[in-house]
């Protein structure tokens, strides 16, 4: 066992942190949100840093990085409250590299790595919550190819995506994932305004006609690949949440030391000192959960992996709630404003708690996994 970052990883962390500190300041972010800053420039800068190349194999122009490396990026994204859909694009790319044919990978991955192709993956529908098997979008096969009908909800990054990945149920009852170019007849993209200022859209598909080779890897049983990508999503979310919590906790400490009431800094009240200690403990717990998620997301066995990832997500949701709520509370009314970063961190942390499964949902997932393994034991 070794839980230390390597020298390269430490260097990489420094570059990620420097980029966030210098090139993705809260000011710049606010300008991106207000549309005053060209969005594509930032995307290209991020590509130049190699973030998109990180998790992909060298054969496709990637850097062959590990899940730990990806979490270093995710942590930076959380720290900087990066609203560009970097992680959703990477997750979607990883699904293509797992399911796609060589030709599909060639079309998608190298331009993605260079920052020239944005991908969006649709995991939600208006009625499926987190159940990947409850997908109602359908794919019907005909002589000319596929016809897709359905409604995808809250697809991160779909507003600006160059390609969409749409899971749909085929007539065999299995789920296939379709690669779709926006602009095609029958496809509507309805942008949403989100609390945390990230971008997402609903995607409505009405009789969208696709050629045969739009189906990723000609694979009609993509369920376990989707479950894998969902767990990768959890791992990325834990990293992002950690970055946000760490920044938020530091800002809160600085505020308590600076803000004076009753003739002394707030930090001199023992009641608040203890609250700040609890925040710090929560951040360390989050750090461990994020690490645990990154180390176990590569485990091939579904039950082992999913169980570990569910535990990590439950912990991240708990700590994100504590750190977010306490940071707002300790900032007083200032914490309630749109002007300060505090509220923005709080909103992103709240959103992350609702992404890739709430705690209640994960308790059920663990219960299901445990019940299945007890059943197996009996046999």
């Amino acid at each position, binding site marked *: 066992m070794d839980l230390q970052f390597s020298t390269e990883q430490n260097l990489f962390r420094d570059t990620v942190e420097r980029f966030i500190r210098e090139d993705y300041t809260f000011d710049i972010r606010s300008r991106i949100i207000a549309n005053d800053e060209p969005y594509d420039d930032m995307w290209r800068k991020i590509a130049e840093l190699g973030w998109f190349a990180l998790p992909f194999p060298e054969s496709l122009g990637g850097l062959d990085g590990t899940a730990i490396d990806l979490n270093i990026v995710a942590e930076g994204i959380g720290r900087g409250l990066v609203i560009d859909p970097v992680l959703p694009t990477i997750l979607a790319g990883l699904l293509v590299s797992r399911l796609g044919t060589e030709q599909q990978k060639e079309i998608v991955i190298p331009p993605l790595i260079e920052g020239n192709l944005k991908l969006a993956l649709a995991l939600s529908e208006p009625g499926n919550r987190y159940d990947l098997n409850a997908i109602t979008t359908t794919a019907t096969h005909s002589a000319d190819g596929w016809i897709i009908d359905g409604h995808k909800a809250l697809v991160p990054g779909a507003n600006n995506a160059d390609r969409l990945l749409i899971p749909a149920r085929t007539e065999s009852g299995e789920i296939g994932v379709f690669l779709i170019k926006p602009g095609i007849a029958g496809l509507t993209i309805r942008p949403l305004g989100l609390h945390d200022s990230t971008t997402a859209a609903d995607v409505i598909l009405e009789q969208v006609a696709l050629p045969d080779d739009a189906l990723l890897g000609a694979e009609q049983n993509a369920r376990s690949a989707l479950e894998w990508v969902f767990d990768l999503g959890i791992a990325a979310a834990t990293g992002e949440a950690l970055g946000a919590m760490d920044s938020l906790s530091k800002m809160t400490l600085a505020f308590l030391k600076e803000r004076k009431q009753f003739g002394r800094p707030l930090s001199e009240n023992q009641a608040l000192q203890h609250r700040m200690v609890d925040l710090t403990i929560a951040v360390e717990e989050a750090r461990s959960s994020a690490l645990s998620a990154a180390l176990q997301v590569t485990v091939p066995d579904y039950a082992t992996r999913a169980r570990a990832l569910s535990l990590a997500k439950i912990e991240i949701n708990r700590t994100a709630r504590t750190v977010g709520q306490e940071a707002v509370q300790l900032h007083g009314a200032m914490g309630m404003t749109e*002007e300060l970063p505090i509220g923005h961190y709080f909103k992103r942390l*709240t959103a992350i708690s609702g992404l890739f499964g709430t705690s209640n949902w994960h308790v059920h997932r663990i219960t299901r996994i445990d019940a299945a393994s007890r059943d197996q034991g009996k046999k």
Partner: protein
Amino acid sequence: MMKLELTTDEQIFADEVRDFVARNLPADIAEKVRRGAILGRDDHMRWQQILASCNWHAFSWPKEHGGPGWSVTQRYLFENICGEMDCPLIQPFGPRMAGPVIFSFGTEDQKARFLPGIRESTDWWCQGYSEPHAGSDLATLSTRAEDDGEHYIINGQKIWTSYAHYANWMFCLVRTSNEDRPQKGITFLLIDMSTPGVRVDPIVGMDGRHSFNSVFFDDVRVPKENRIGEEGKGWTYAKFLLEHERIDNAALGVTKQALERVRQMASVPIDSATPLIEDPIFSSRLIAIEAQFASLEMTALRVLSAVNSGESPGPASSLLKIRGTEIAQQISELALEIAGQYAQVRPSMNGTYDCAPSGPEQTEMAMTNYLWKRAMSIYGGSNEVQKNIISKRILEM
């Protein structure tokens, strides 16, 4: 003798309230409240004036000041029924805050000038206490009032003033002296918001709403006849008010309704699984909150009953404020749990979406409410300050 059952008279009263609300609450307003949407000034004023038509706007006032003179039980019933039937919350700044200070400490002339506008809800009041450097430590406020014969001349800044942009009057704490303890140089003034030199700047909340403001005073002339009580005694009046405000801040009628809403929300299935209400993990959280709420409600009735028999609410009001706000916040968290990822979509400021919502209808306001409810443990004297009051005043620690 102690008992929970309503008397026949109380039952008749409850029926009368239900009947009035059923006949008079405008459907569009009830619909907004039901959806948890954001109400505008007109929505509030329209409903409050309907209530005022039978003198129910200032429903907590005694008869001698023109109120209905209701008992504690009647007030409790009224608030609960209004909550149940999707009435907007009566804005507290006039009837719950400015009014009681004016009728307790104001002159006959002030009562005649200001009470009718509050009772009839033709004026909108705002509360000018907090300043950038005086939050929890309110007594260090520094907005200056200089004596200029018949007038005070006001200079300084208030912050976080809720609905100052709707208000035509502000009750305000200003500093008239720097000698002695900071509490002693504070004076309570009523300020006409249309006076030259008053400027209101919006502050946008993290939920995207504009509810609070900065209010700047630049040589604002306020006639001395707008001073409540004596110069330098403002702190006493403000403290009287804060204790009453805290009982109201427990907002029990609203919380009860929120609990009911979250139960309904959980009863509608979202995914293919059974509705969350049938999930023991979820419902144990819901019921634990309900249990805590039931006990809080009983505590509130105990306090109100004591107040009714002449005692001051005192530090018990702090207890109500702490638990009342915590419970309301927990309920909003349950709604988030139900809404899951669908909570992310942000409605626009007037409570409608810029776009159609993505998830099921009942999830639409979950995150806005959750974000907003965080403020409850900050305003009206933060929950930490309430704990300081209990430890100092009750426990003498």
